C-alpha cells in the first residue's frame, strides 16, 4: 500500500511551494543523520576510510536540508494556499560508470530524498560500492522507520550494456540519468522511452585547480594533496592540471617541492603495488616527454612541472603543475571542462576573475577543497529537481 503523502512547505522566488512527499520527509532526514553515528563506529570492508568519512559528512541533516532549500526555497511552517505543489515524478533510472566510486552511494542518499522509485544500474564488471552501501544502510535502518521505507524504493542491478534489461530500464523510467562515455549515454537515450521523460548525461569531464600565487600556503598544499589523492586522474572532479595563476616556473617548482614534502604526511596509506609501479612508469614517461617530473616518496604520486607546450600525461596518479596568466588559463581550458577548483589570495570571497569564465566551458567554480562535492546540480544540470513534477496552482 502506498504511503500517505505528507506536505512540507517552502517559500521560493516563484511563490510558495508545497512538497507532497510519500511519507515523513523530516523523519527521513533525521534517520540519515542518525545513521552517521553507526557509520562512525563501523567501516565496511568495501570502503576506504576517506570514502566512508565523505559519506558520513554527506549524510548530515543540514547538508541534506540544503539540497531541498536550493531546489524549493526556504522552509516555512505552512504555505497557506500554495502556488505550486511539487510531487515525485516517477521511476528514476541511473546508469553508473564501471569504475564506480562513491557516486552510487551518494545517489542513493540524494535520490532517496525525491520519494521516487529508483533503479541504479552498475556494469557487470563493476567494483561497485552501491550494493555495499545499500546493504549497510538497510541493516542499520530503524525498523519500520522512514529510512527503511525509502530504501525499499531503491533497487540496484548489475548487467552489461548489451543485456535486454537495459531496454526495460529505459522504457520504465520517467527520468534517465547516465554517467559514462558519450557513446554509452547516446545508446541509453536512444532506447525507447516515455515521451515525457527527462534524460541527463554526465560524460567525460576534465577539471583543474587554479591557484593564485599568493594563495600557496600550508592549507592550500594539504588541500590540493587530499583533493587529488582520493581519485587521482580517475576522478572527473579531480584536478588533472594545477595552474599557478600569474606564476612562473620557479614558483611551480617551489609548489612541487612543498607538495612532495607534505604528501606522505597527508596521505599515509601506501598505494597498491600495481599503482606504485605505474607511477615509476609515469615518471619516466613524463621525463621522456620533457616534463620535470619527480616521484613522491614510496611512489605515492608523480609531480610533473612543465609548460603549456607539453603533451599532457594521462596516468592515474600524475599531477601536472603549470603556470599561466588568467587569459592563457582560460584559453587552454578543454571543451569538456567541468570544475575549476580555486585557491585565492586573501581578501576574496569569490574569485575576482570569475567574469573571465562566464563564456568558458566550465560548469563548476568551487573552492579547491570542494571539487568533489556532489550536489543537486551537476555539470550545470538540475537533475535532482527534475525528479519532481510541478503542479501550478492559481
Amino acid at each position, binding site marked *: 500500500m502506498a504511503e500517505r503523502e505528507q506536505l512540507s512547505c517552502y517559500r521560493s522566488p516563484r511563490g510558495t511551494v508545497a512538497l507532497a512527499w510519500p511519507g515523513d520527509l523530516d523523519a527521513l532526514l533525521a534517520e540519515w543523520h542518525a545513521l552517521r553515528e553507526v557509520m562512525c563506529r563501523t567501516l565496511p570492508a568495501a570502503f576506504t576510510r576517506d570514502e566512508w568519512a565523505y559519506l558520513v559528512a554527506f549524510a548530515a541533516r543540514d547538508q541534506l536540508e540544503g539540497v531541498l532549500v536550493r531546489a524549493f526555497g526556504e522552509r516555512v511552517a505552512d504555505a497557506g494556499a500554495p502556488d505550486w505543489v511539487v510531487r515525485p515524478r516517477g521511476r528514476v533510472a541511473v546508469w553508473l560508470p564501471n569504475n564506480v566510486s562513491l557516486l552510487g552511494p551518494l545517489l542513493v542518499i540524494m535520490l532517496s530524498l525525491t520519494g521516487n522509485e529508483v533503479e541504479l544500474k552498475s556494469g557487470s564488471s563493476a567494483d561497485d560500492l552501491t550494493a555495499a552501501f545499500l546493504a549497510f544502510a538497510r541493516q542499520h535502518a530503524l525498523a519500520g522507520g522512514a529510512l527503511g521505507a525509502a530504501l525499499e524504493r531503491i533497487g540496484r542491478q548489475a548487467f552489461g550494456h548489451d543485456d535486454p534489461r537495459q531496454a526495460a530500464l529505459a522504457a520504465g523510467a520517467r527520468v534517465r540519468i547516465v554517467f559514462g*562515455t558519450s557513446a554509452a549515454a547516446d545508446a541509453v537515450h536512444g532506447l525507447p522511452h516515455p515521451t515525457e521523460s527527462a534524460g541527463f548525461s554526465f560524460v567525460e569531464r576534465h577539471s583543474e585547480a587554479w591557484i593564485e600565487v599568493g594563495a600557496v600556503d600550508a592549507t592550500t598544499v594539504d588541500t590540493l594533496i587530499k583533493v587529488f589523492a582520493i581519485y587521482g586522474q*580517475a576522478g572527473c572532479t579531480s584536478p588533472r592540471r594545477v595552474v599557478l595563476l600569474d606564476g612562473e616556473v620557479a614558483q611551480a617548482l617551489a609548489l612541487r617541492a612543498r607538495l612532495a614534502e607534505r604528501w606522505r604526511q597527508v596521505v599515509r596509506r601506501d598505494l597498491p603495488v600495481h599503482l606504485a609501479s605505474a607511477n615509476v612508469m609515469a615518471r619516466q614517461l613524463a621525463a*621522456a616527454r620533457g616534463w620535470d617530473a619527480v616521484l613522491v616518496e614510496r611512489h605515492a604520486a608523480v609531480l610533473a612541472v612543465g609548460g603549456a607546450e607539453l603533451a599532457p600525461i594521462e596516468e*592515474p596518479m600524475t599531477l601536472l603543475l603549470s603556470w599561466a596568466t588568467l587569459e592563457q588559463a582560460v584559453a587552454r581550458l578543454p571543451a569538456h571542462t567541468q570544475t575549476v577548483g580555486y585557491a585565492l589570495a586573501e581578501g576574496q570571497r569569490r574569485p575576482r576573475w570569475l567574469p573571465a569564465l562566464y563564456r568558458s566551458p566550465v560548469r563548476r567554480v568551487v573552492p579547491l577543497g570542494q571539487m568533489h562535492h556532489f550536489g543537486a546540480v551537476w555539470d550545470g544540470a538540475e537533475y535532482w529537481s527534475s525528479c519532481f513534477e510541478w503542479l501550478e496552482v492559481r
Partner: protein
Amino acid sequence: MTLLEAPPYAPRRPAELLAELEGLTAHHLAGCAEFARCWPDWRPQGTLVALPFLHVGLFKRLRLVTQGPQLEHQRTLLSSATTGATPSMIVLDRHSSALQARSSAAILRDFLGPELRPLLVLDSARALLRRGEVTARTAAAMSLKPLASAIHFVLGDGEDPRSLDWAKVAEVAEGATGLLVYGFTSMLWRAWGSVEPPEGLRRVLRGQAIHFVHSGGWKRLEAERVTRERFDAALLAGAGAGSSVVDYYGLVEQVGIIYPQCEQGLRHVPLWAEVLVRDPHTLAPLATEAGQLQLLNVLSWGAPCHSVLTEDLGQLVPGACPCGRHGPRFRLLGRLPKAELRGCAHG
C-alpha cells in the same frame, strides 16, 4: 662479446658483466633522447643496482630507439599478450637480433639438447601475416627457431584450441625422430594436454621424444584448477621416453633472454644477463624477499631494452642449485596484483 661465447650457466664473471652493462647504458644515453631524459644525472657507480632501467609499460607508450654507428634498424615489433591490448613497440636491429638469436639458442640447448627437431607451434600461420606486427606468443615461438629443423603452425584458428590440425601433427611426427611443441601455457593445455589425440596418432606420439615448451603464465589455468603436476603428467602420458615439459619466462621487451624452469622449479640467469628484485614502493634492491623483477642483458643495442623493470613478482633464491647451473636463480611469483583506482570518471 666474450660473455656470449661462454656456456650460459658457466661460473659468473661479474666485473665483465658490469663493464658491459655500463658501456651499453652509456651507448643508449648517447643515442636515445628519451632514455637520456629519464636518467639525466646517471654516472657509472660500479654497481648493478645503480644502472638505469626503463619500466616495461613505457614500451607501450613510446617507440624507443637508439641511434648509433653501424646500427641498422630493421622493423618495429608490435607485440601484445592478447588481442586488443595496447602493444609494446620493440625496435629491432640487425646487430642485436644476431646476438639475441645466439643467446636463446644457447639457453635452449642447455635445457633441450643440441638436436634439431620439427617445431609444432600451437598458433595459426595467420599470426605471421600481419606486417610488422607479431603477437607475444608468436614472438615466443620464434625464440625456439634455432632448435627447429622446420616450423609448422598447427592451429587453424589461433584462438580456438579445437582447431588443432591433428592430421598435420601426424604427418610431421611420422617422419621425425623427436618433436618440439610450443604453445602458450593455456593453449597447450586446451589444445593438447586436456584432449585425446586421434587413435592412430597416439601410437606414433608414444614413440616420440617430445619436448613441450610453454610460456605465458598459469593465471587462466589456475581458474580451472589445473596444477603444474597435472599439466606435466597429462602431456607426458601421451609421449615417448625422453620427453620433457619446459616452462619458460621471458619478456618481448627482452628478446633473446628466456628463463626456463629447472628441475628445482627455479629460473636461472644466463651469464650475459642479470636479475634484480626491487621493493615496488622504494625500488630498494631485495636480497631474498619477494619484489618486482628487473631484467638486464647485454644484447640490446638498437633500443634501450637492456634494463627493464617488469610488472612481475619474483624472489631471488640464494645458494647453489642441485641442477648444477651456476649463477643467480629466482622464483617467479606471477604478476603484480592489480587494483583499479576508483574514481568517478568513466570507463
